[in-house]
């Protein structure tokens, strides 16, 4: 297999076996003699030791509440937290670290925009444009807002191939949406949307744009200024970072004009009985004690990704997905959802005729192979495909070509067991 691999992907420059040593969990056996084959990075990524250690060091040596303390620990903790913000800023090419707001996850980041920007800027009857390939996190916040404010919601159609329908996009932009919120990369079919062009079109149509970067920021270089995007949301846990931390980026002017979302400590400049004055950016949107250790961990994750190189990671995943599609296409009765390799990232969703996705996942698990089965928080897309659930294998920098071979072998076992 190794030769075939090298032939297929001559440019792969990443030493995946060396990288795997950085990830403690990858050495695990899920059952005696059954090593873990982790193909579920789209749900959450594994964490390198350096990220775990960065948080340990924070707790073991520096832990303190931030921003207001005049003692060594508080100053160190504040510096570490703000340094993480700086790293995020550089990672996505933002102009200022004031535009980097720490949230719990992508979901909270999108909700922040819905509550703060949405409630203050939108008016009854305004149109919000989404797409049929969105994760629930980029649907439900808008549905909640639409219900509250009596807004209209439209969705750009997805084609049978699993890409956005360009004509439908143009048609719906012509309806004059106030906001266009869409995913950079589908977490189900892996489609990478041409964000830059779409944002430019949306701007021409007068819409503010929000990009769901939960699946893009971890996997390839995303530059907010190059994209000219208004808001970008993503999660730490999908990019080698810890749970409990996410990011909202926003254009300065938009953020400045938005009212606070959560109220509490740190987000104020001054409080008197019955009134308050909000703080400056980014603190205006960070109420209460933030996820300090988690920000530090995210900073370490960014250092780690930068060390490997986002372009190298992206290339490795491209190789994996090409190989996976090729191998899976061999399997009779296996249906693959989504476009061909050059339009997508390291995610493959599929079904085996006559076998439910849950059963596939369960049997694969017996071989130590961790994939997802279900609607992957994208029910409308599954409705479109007219299947209740799919099985999804997803890759990251630590995924090997051998793991894809194992996946394929186990799928043959599924077919045996079900006699299909």
């Amino acid at each position, binding site marked *: 297999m190794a030769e075939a691999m090298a032939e297929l992907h001559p440019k792969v420059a990443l030493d995946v076996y060396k990288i795997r040593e950085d990830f403690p969990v990858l050495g695990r056996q899920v059952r005696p003699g059954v090593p873990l084959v982790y193909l579920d990075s789209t749900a959450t990524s594994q964490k390198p030791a350096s990220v775990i250690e960065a948080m340990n060091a924070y707790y073991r040596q520096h832990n303190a509440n931030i921003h207001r303390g005049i003692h060594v620990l508080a100053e160190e903790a504040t510096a570490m937290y703000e340094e993480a913000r700086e790293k995020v800023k550089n990672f996505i090419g933002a102009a200022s670290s004031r535009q980097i707001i720490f949230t719990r996850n992508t979901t909270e980041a999108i909700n922040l925009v819905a509550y703060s920007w949405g409630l203050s800027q939108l008016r009854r009857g305004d149109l919000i444009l989404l797409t049929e390939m969105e994760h629930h996190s980029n649907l439900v916040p808008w549905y909640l807002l639409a219900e509250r404010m009596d807004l209209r919601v439209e969705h750009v159609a997805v084609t049978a191939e699993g890409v956005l329908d360009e004509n439908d996009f143009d048609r719906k932009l012509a309806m004059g949406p106030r906001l266009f919120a869409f995913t950079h990369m589908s977490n189900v079919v892996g489609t990478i949307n041409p964000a830059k062009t779409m944002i430019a079109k949306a701007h021409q149509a007068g819409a503010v744009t929000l990009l769901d970067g939960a699946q893009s920021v971890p996997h390839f270089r995303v530059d907010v200024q190059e994209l000219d995007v208004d808001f970008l949301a993503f999660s730490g846990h999908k990019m080698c970072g810890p749970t409990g931390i996410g990011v909202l980026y926003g254009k300065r002017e938009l953020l400045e004009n938005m009212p606070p979302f959560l109220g509490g400590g740190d987000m104020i400049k001054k409080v008197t009985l019955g009134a308050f004055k909000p703080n400056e950016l980014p603190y205006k949107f960070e109420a209460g004690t933030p996820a300090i250790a988690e920000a530090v961990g995210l900073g370490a994750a960014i250092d780690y990704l930068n060390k490997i190189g986002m372009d190298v990671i992206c290339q490795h995943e491209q190789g994996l997905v090409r190989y996976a599609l090729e191998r899976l296409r061999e399997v009779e009765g296996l249906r693959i959802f989504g476009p061909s390799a050059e339009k997508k990232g390291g995610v493959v969703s599929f079904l085996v005729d006559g076998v*439910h*996705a*849950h059963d596939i996942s*369960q049997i694969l698990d017996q*071989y130590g192979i961790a994939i997802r089965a279900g*609607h992957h928080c994208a029910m409308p897309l599954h409705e479109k495909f007219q299947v*209740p*659930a799919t099985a999804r294998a997803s890759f990251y920098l630590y995924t090997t070509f051998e793991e894809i071979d194992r996946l394929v072998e186990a799928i043959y076992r599924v077919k045996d067991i079900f*006699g299909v």
Partner: protein
Amino acid sequence: MDDFYRELIIDRYKNPQYRGSLNPADISFEDENPLCGDHIHIDLRVDDEGVIREALFEGRGCAISQASADLLMEKVHGMHVDQVKRLSKQDILEMLGIELGPVRLKCALLSLKVLKAGVYGLGEATDDLVEE
């Protein structure tokens, strides 16, 4: 691992014994597990003593949910509805003869949830019906 997908389950999934519908039925109920699209509809004929005389299901979904429904229909034939009300998660697990993680448990328990909601005459099936 073939322990798990025991022949019983695959067999009942592929060749169900109690698939079908009753018209009229004394008790009918249906529900789905939105997580995975598993769907179960149950029809019962119950005599004057409250004993189940006929039980059939229709459904779609994974092997566990469908085999579990088929085996449950078999089990409740001839049972009094009061006995049905006392059926628990444990009974289903014993019936299937396997251990299950939390997600698959939902698949396995869907038919019991539907059955109990029907027998209790509830408007909606809730997880509390099959939780300890």
